[in-house]
């Protein structure tokens, strides 16, 4: 190991590691060994590396900035284009103070609040976050967060299965986000659970007759609203068709709670979804925050951490992790989930966003999404070659069809510096000409007009 650097040599110091030369020698003396290498004697020589790893670095901040910024510059993004991309990740405005507060070291560099006396900041914030989730969904008990929308649906399906003995079938609307459906298939592959997918009708809403027919022998039904096509489901009709099965509502666009009635009001038992829309940057898909809210009776079956209110020895109100006997560190192989690390910091961001927007702001964001989407929908209807395949009500996203392959039309739009939508051919065999277009409060009328004009131009270019 002669080529390897001597850790006590000041030349091998590193800015993130405090102890160097003299410290190391003093500490070795206390430990009673003559070199750090001796501390690794329990690792057999034949598995020890006799060289340094073959990786780049160590880099200064200057070098890191140079390289990573050059990489970022190779992306084409909403920074330099006007983006109409949604499909489970939505660009909404994040108030400036959210990110500033997130950078407070007391939040950023703390861990899971196992010791409540020194973690009240995190604990109280989670309690507030749980309260927001309850108010938004109209249900009773929310957990501290799950990884994201897709895995939250997995947890909901597994939880629903535990509630009913002897039934192994779950009914999932085919209009749930395709990545969510794929993730559920991965999760359940060895658990003896059967998935039945139910399609949609002309309006883009779940096919209620097919749903009703599929419920025999099933333990739960899950629908997404607004669904992957942006269409708002009729919760009451779905609940009616689902009979007494456990009803799971999936919400991938969480700003929609501002204007749509909550699933708890429509006899749904569990609401899971993705909280990214609460101002979290799209950041190529993560980190986001999954949420789960359930009826009171289901709380002891829930996965994930829960924070509860209690008092301390002086009678002071305080918050603590609770009902932990559901969790892996206590129940091990019989836990309600294997989740440990979750998405606490993003849940904190969500709490901040929801508090800043508040009762009126959440409604206004949702109203603007709804109105601007309606405006674009009307404009697009006026373009002769454009077809809007689904007639159902939409929130902030809609499917658009032209006579030409979607990828071609979208490439044309990209020339105009527009990220025009998500082609659906990748997800559904018969939808090569369809793409999904999302609108939020960030879009101006001018941009919507330009979109319609650019689409018209793209279609005529393809005609030629």
């Amino acid at each position: 190991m002669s080529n390897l650097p001597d850790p006590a040599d000041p030349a091998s110091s590193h800015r993130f590691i405090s102890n160097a030369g003299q410290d190391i020698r003093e500490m070795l003396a206390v430990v009673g060994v003559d070199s750090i290498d001796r501390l690794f004697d329990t690792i057999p020589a034949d598995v020890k590396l006799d060289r340094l790893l073959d990786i780049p670095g160590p880099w200064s901040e200057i070098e890191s900035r140079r390289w990573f910024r050059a990489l970022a510059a190779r992306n084409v993004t909403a920074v330099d284009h006007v983006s109409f991309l949604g499909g489970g990740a939505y660009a909404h405005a994040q108030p400036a103070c959210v990110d500033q507060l997130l950078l407070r070291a007391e939040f950023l560099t703390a861990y899971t609040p196992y010791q409540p006396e020194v973690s009240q900041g995190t604990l109280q914030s989670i309690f507030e976050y749980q309260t927001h989730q309850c108010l938004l969904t109209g249900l009773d008990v929310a957990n501290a967060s799950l990884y994201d929308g897709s895995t939250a649906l997995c947890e909901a399906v597994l939880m629903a299965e535990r509630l009913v003995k002897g039934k192994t079938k779950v009914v999932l609307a085919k209009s749930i986000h395709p990545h969510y459906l794929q993730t559920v298939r991965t999760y359940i592959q060895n658990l003896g659970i059967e998935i039945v997918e139910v399609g949609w009708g002309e309006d883009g809403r779940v096919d209620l007759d097919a749903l009703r027919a599929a419920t025999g022998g099933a333990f739960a039904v899950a629908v997404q609203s607004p669904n992957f096509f942006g269409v708002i489901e009729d919760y009451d009709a779905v609940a009616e068709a689902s009979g007494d099965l456990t009803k799971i509502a999936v919400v991938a666009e969480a700003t929609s709670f501002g204007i749509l009635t909550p699933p708890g009001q429509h006899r749904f038992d569990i609401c899971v979804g993705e909280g990214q829309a609460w101002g979290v940057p799209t950041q190529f898909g993560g980190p986001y925050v999954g949420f789960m809210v359930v009826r009171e009776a289901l709380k002891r079956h829930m996965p994930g951490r829960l924070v509860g209110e209690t008092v301390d020895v002086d009678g002071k109100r305080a918050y603590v992790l609770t009902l932990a006997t559901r969790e892996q560190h206590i129940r091990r192989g019989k836990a309600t989930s294997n989740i440990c690390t979750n998405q606490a910091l993003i849940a904190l961001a969500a709490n901040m966003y929801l508090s800043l927007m508040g009762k009126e702001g959440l409604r206004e964001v949702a109203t603007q999404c709804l109105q601007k989407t309606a405006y674009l929908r009307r404009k697009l209807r006026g373009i002769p070659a454009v077809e809007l395949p689904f007639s159902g009500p939409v929130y902030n996203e809609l499917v658009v069809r032209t006579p030409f392959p979607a990828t071609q039309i979208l490439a044309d739009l990209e020339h105009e510096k527009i990220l025009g939508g998500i082609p659906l051919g990748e997800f559904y065999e018969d939808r090569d000409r369809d793409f999904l277009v999302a609108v939020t409060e960030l879009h101006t009328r001018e941009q919507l007009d330009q979109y319609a004009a650019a689409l018209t131009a793209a279609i005529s270019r393809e005609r030629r």
Partner: protein
Amino acid sequence: MTAITQQNETDQPEAQKDVAQRSSTEPLIFERSKPGRRGYQLPALDVPEQALEDLLPAGLHRSEIADEVEVSEVDVIRHFTRLSKLNVSIDAGLYPLGSCTMKHNPRINEEIARVPGFAHSHPMQAEHQVQGNLELLWWLEQTLKEIFGMPRVTLQPVAGAHGELTGILMVHKALAKSGNARKYILIPDSAHGTNPASAAFAGYEIRELKSNSRGTVDLSTLAEAVTEDVAALMVTVPNTLGVFESEIKQMADILHAKGAYLYCDGANLNSFVGIARPGDMGIDVIHSNLHKTFSTPHGGGGPGAGPVGISERLLPYLPTPTVERREDGTFYLDYDHPDSIGRMRAFHGNFNVLVRALTYMRSMGPTGLRRIAQLAVLNANYIRARLRKFYHLPYDAPTLHEVVFSDKNQTAKDVHTLDIAKRLMDYGFHPPTIYFPLIVSGALMIEPTESEPKEELDAFCDAMIAIARECEERPELVRSAPHTTPVRRLDEARAARQPVLRWKK
């Protein structure tokens, strides 16, 4: 650091009590709410407004979000700033939670993650638009491959437990492909609780392996336990006592001879990164918690990331999509893995956690990564050497990056691990992990990491020694600790028996 022993509240003027009260409690954001306050402003709606009943069916239009808050931006900033002050954090000092690797979180990671080209890239963009992101993911995989000594790594899992599930699902699929998925996963009694939970979610039953007197796995116990029904052993290396499984290669041989797999929980990778590689030990699957070894901030409990490295025989089962490089230097997402276990999560994992981790790996380089392990192990052994006269060391085997004591020397005075942990708070330190691993009664599991300067380690050891003395001389003081925190000794039984899980008006 002086310990504040007892507060003499009777001498305190009323006004000062209010100050103390103000700095130790903060109302809920909902309790700050007042009708008419606002914390946001949007541009005026610039499209012609349509009647709501034309856009939304009756019965699906919400008239209001009852009881949601109304607060100003000032209220929000004050509220969260005050809440933050009720937390301790690694930036404020040693946070020696064993198994959690609470190390320094470099701020260059945060800066890079916020570069707009990363932060505002969209997960559903076309490949040609996100070449920078794909190249970054490709490089991170190359780097982890070299660190693990393994042929491939999936970056999809977003937490350690998520990585465990991913790994065991791959094992299951591989075995099922060869005709028999088998029934059991072996797990030592010293393991993290996520191991059995993940194995159960992957469709297996658990068989617990008893640790020997060194706290490690005996080859004979293992050989006996590995039947034709065993799919894999999940073992933490070094284990949760900090002891390296010196016979890891022989363990792999025993498992492989019976067609089973060796899974390594990489939570403790910080102790041997750059020193030895899992792939060279015969390990088939390892997950690494990037929020531990690779410094992405813990954030009060996430987000993290749990990439999984695999050996040759598991290659066909990787989650899809994978990131691949073409000969012309461009990158693409490859869905063409017919035997894949499938997708573990929507989109591409916790991308912006991965950005932070690669930034850190570049900051450290090969020399820095090796130095991490060296100093993490030296720091832990220094604490062990300084404290072993005062606290009972239940397993005397040499340890790497963490040291586990017990409260055996203190129980005679009816002082227990919980009391010692709470008393540490009065000295300004976050307590270690307590009552884990389960094989140690009254465990105090201390992991200082490489970040800590000697002065901080000394201050911590001095505090622990002072507490040991207090246990002898003034046990009541320790039993009633903490005395200086915003709240003290919460009624956890009440929280669980009469759960209040949300605010109500």
